[in-house]
């Protein structure tokens, strides 16, 4: 009969020790909103679950000189209630708050959404678009990893045995910088992105875009940073030509599969649509700041 152990360490070293010392599969649990479902469905059968929520500082949001620190296990509900973060990164907040239901929001975390490594994760494109950095701790110490380098394939991350994410750092937003996230789902909520798109833009005083990041989700094995999409936006005030170029760039960046959630053709076309619509919201927000 398979056995499952559960531990809730109260310090980073203890957590690392447990994870690194596990003989079989060990899973890090933040909110558990993906992990528990996978356990029940039999998709994963770990030997050990390490619940990180008792580690001091891993739940909560701090505003610092250089920006924001979001604890890895901070729930979506707390993120949605943080006025400073909502003002600075409305795209990240709206993306995070789209995950699951109101009940799920009470538990679901950024680290969990990222490390579940689904191409369709909602918060991930938004965090990448705003150049979020994950602080990874493990047996070999601490390292800072741009969030786009965490997921390597569906269900796989670049984290080594014994490593887990402690927190996320977001830079202090510049003047006229803002972000947005949109996803396409066949319903209005309680669903998984068929296409997700995060866009961050910075404008000059005249409303011309001077910096941009465009990130797509659910259209390739991992989230895709659309460099050509950013180029299409930089130097523009989001005119028709820029939107058309962005649409084309987004479509070109897709590498989706046909599956029950959408065809290749549909995903590619909708990626262009979502990129345009998300960029328009990000521009409007940045202009208003």
């Amino acid at each position: 009969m398979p056995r499952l152990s559960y531990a809730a360490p109260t310090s980073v070293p203890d957590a690392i020790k447990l994870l690194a010392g596990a003989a079989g599969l060990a899973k890090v649990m933040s909110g558990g909103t993906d992990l528990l479902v996978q356990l029940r469905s039999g998709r994963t059968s770990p030997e050990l679950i390490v619940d990180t929520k008792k580690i001091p500082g891993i739940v909560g949001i701090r505003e610092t000189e250089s920006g924001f620190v979001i604890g890895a296990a901070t729930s979506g509900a707390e993120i949605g209630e943080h006025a400073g973060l909502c003002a600075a990164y409305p795209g990240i907040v709206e993306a995070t708050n789209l995950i699951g239901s109101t009940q799920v929001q009470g538990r679901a975390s950024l680290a969990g959404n990222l490390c579940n490594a689904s191409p369709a994760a909602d918060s991930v494109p938004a965090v990448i678009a705003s150049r979020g950095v994950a602080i990874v701790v493990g047996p070999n110490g601490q390292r800072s990893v741009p969030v786009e380098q965490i997921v390597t394939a569906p269900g796989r991350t670049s984290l080594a045995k014994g490593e887990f994410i402690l927190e996320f750092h977001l830079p202090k937003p510049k003047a006229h910088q803002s972000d947005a996230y949109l996803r396409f789902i066949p319903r209005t909520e309680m669903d998984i992105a068929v296409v997700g798109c995060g866009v961050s833009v910075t404008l000059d005083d005249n409303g011309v875009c001077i910096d941009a990041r465009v990130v797509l989700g659910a259209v390739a094995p991992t989230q895709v940073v659309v460099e050509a999409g950013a180029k299409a936006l930089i130097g523009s005030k989001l005119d028709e030509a820029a939107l058309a170029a962005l649409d084309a760039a987004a479509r070109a960046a897709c590498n989706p599969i046909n599956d029950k959630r959408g065809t290749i053709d549909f995903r590619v076309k909708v990626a262009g649509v979502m990129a345009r619509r998300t960029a328009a919201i990000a521009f409007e927000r940045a202009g208003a700041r």
Partner: protein
Amino acid sequence: MNFVANKSDLKVVGTRPVRPDGMDKVTGKAQFGADLTLAGTLVGKIKRSPHAHARIVAIDTSKALAIPGVKSVITAADIPDIPSEEAFVGEGPTNFRDQSLNCIARDKVLYEGHAVAAVAATSSAIADAALAAIEVTYEVLPHVIDVEAAMAEDAPILFEGMITQGVDPKPTKASNIVKKVAFGHGDWQAGMAEADVVVEGKYDTAAVHQAYIEPHACIASVNPDGQTTIFASSQGQFMIRQYTAKILGMDIADIRVTPAEIGGGFGGKTIVYIEPLAVAMSRQAGRPVKIVMTRDEVFRASGPTSGGTIEVKIGAKKDGTITGAYAMVKLQAGAFPGSPVAPACMCAFAMYDLKNVMAEGYDVVSNRAKVAAYRAPGAPISTFAVESVMDELAIKLGMDPIDLRMKNAAKQGTKASYGPVFPVIGFEEVLEAAKAHPHWTAPLGPNQGRGVATGFWFNIGGESSASVFVNEDGSVSVVSGSPDIGGSRASMAMMAAEVLGIPYEKVRPIIGDTAQIGITGVTGGSRVTFATGMATTQAAERAVDELKKRAAMIWDISPDAVDWKDGEAVPAGANAGGFDPLPLAAIALKAAKTGGPINAEVSINAQGAGAAFGAHIADVEVDPETGFVKILRYTAVQDVGRAIHPSYVEGQIQGGATQGIGWALNEEYIYDKNGRMDNAGFLDYRVPVASDLPMIEAVLVEVPNPRHPFGVRGVGEVPIIPPMAAIGNAIKAATGMRLVSLPMSPPKVRAAFDAAKG
């Protein structure tokens, strides 16, 4: 006694009291199928086929049986190999042998998820280990999923002996076509020749699941002497008793089935899947066995309703008069015969008064889960096509779509397309109410469109039993045999209170188990408020007669000289004597002295169900870039006969419309190339969520059914019939595009836009 009371005379019927089961449900005390556990209960689980079609070469259960804690392992070898025998137990004709083979496969598995073995163990983990330890050797066979592919000459055959019935000459070769049906009158081809305009189209629909929130669940306990108790969630405790007895070769009297609260059924809980297995294992283990299906099992192995293809052709004169109508309906039955192709054909054109009409259909088996009844079985499928073609006809004729329907509407005296002549019906009243509703003329914005569609359902009567017990304090207990899936307990109490002339709160309704009340058919077909309501009303009338007799005894006058008024016995007139009224409670208190307890039980086979019609208006907004269809406004007009409890009638209409909207927009069974279902969960089988829908406005039209004491027609089925066409017609109005394939999901709508652009 047949009467349809004037609405103004009614004191309880037509009001909206609190439901008697409400407190249990909102406090979580209600006992659903999985909620009962007896001492020593074992966990029962089912081993299912991973293949869509395969021969079972061997099943080795020895390793599973050797696991400590495993108390029973069964296969088809442990239950009788019963002969083919027609059954009419649930909501449609079926066959006891098919039901047995669907519960557990014998020689072949016919769909992915088909049960091949079952285990009972002391824990869930041990049961899982036992399932994994059962070794099944399969010889995998070619499979076929779609209906037209299953009808093809070279299709893999599910049943070697299946010769299509209903075709002349009788075929000599086996096929997957179970039977052909045909309904109609006149000469439809001559009707087409008379037409100024002919519109035709081919439509298809996907298999969709009833998606009740509560999975199938039961607990069974067998004594060494064979006496068996079952507690289960279903639409009919007598249905479970009959199937279980037949499948296991038991005496019906040895089985007592107690109905659990039911967390939705919609027709899907009118056949058995797990109860015979639980009983067989309890018999082996000598302990109670509980089986609770997972959602995955519910999707893969319990009945969805059919998908199919429907070809429709309608011809009309320039003034809109329909001269001829034809439909060809091909429905998936799943792995065993029994798609709702007959009602699909019967309902297709029943809204209209037609001289020349024909609907033909094929019942076709394929390697899918056996279909089960789902709200107005078959009608939504054929009606989607017919009402889409009617919309095209209205466009072609330049006519208002409600006017076109009014021009051809069935009315009292119309010979229905499926045979009988309609008595009093309310279709014209429904169309008038739809046209007069402010929704029909409200303004629309860009990318928005409005559609209308109608639907018909017979409603049914059938066997029902009810008892009325007058308690010694004047309160009243009502027992019926009908599981309550739509608020029927409240309706039974209300009808009894109305007849007895006492407040609703003085009447407590319960649902009896199979040993407490007479045989009662399943809750389905929109029959309970009509048929069980009729039994309840008659039982209450008999109680009133008895109460009058007792009053006569107390007063020492003839029973004929006693009237019953507002819950009291009163002298019928001045000649009867000058007695003070005797309230029900006063008579009840003296019951022992006047002859004993005052009770009445009535068992009937109710006749005279009233057909019902609905018309739905849907407004949609279509996103041309993503294909997303948003429902902006939705109005459902329906002839309900008489609403006993209007809130539950509205709830039925809103629920039916919601399921129809899901059917229209997103719900579908998706299979991979191996014939395995790819979306067996609520994440990728998308029922509508609350935020997908506007408030659905239910408009109750009341054209009473003269055959029911209060005019009830039955309301549960009609509202699921019009939504698919109403939404398709609205999309057409918004975009100019005719979607012919369900679901009208975003990828399909976007592809239609792309195709239209060329």
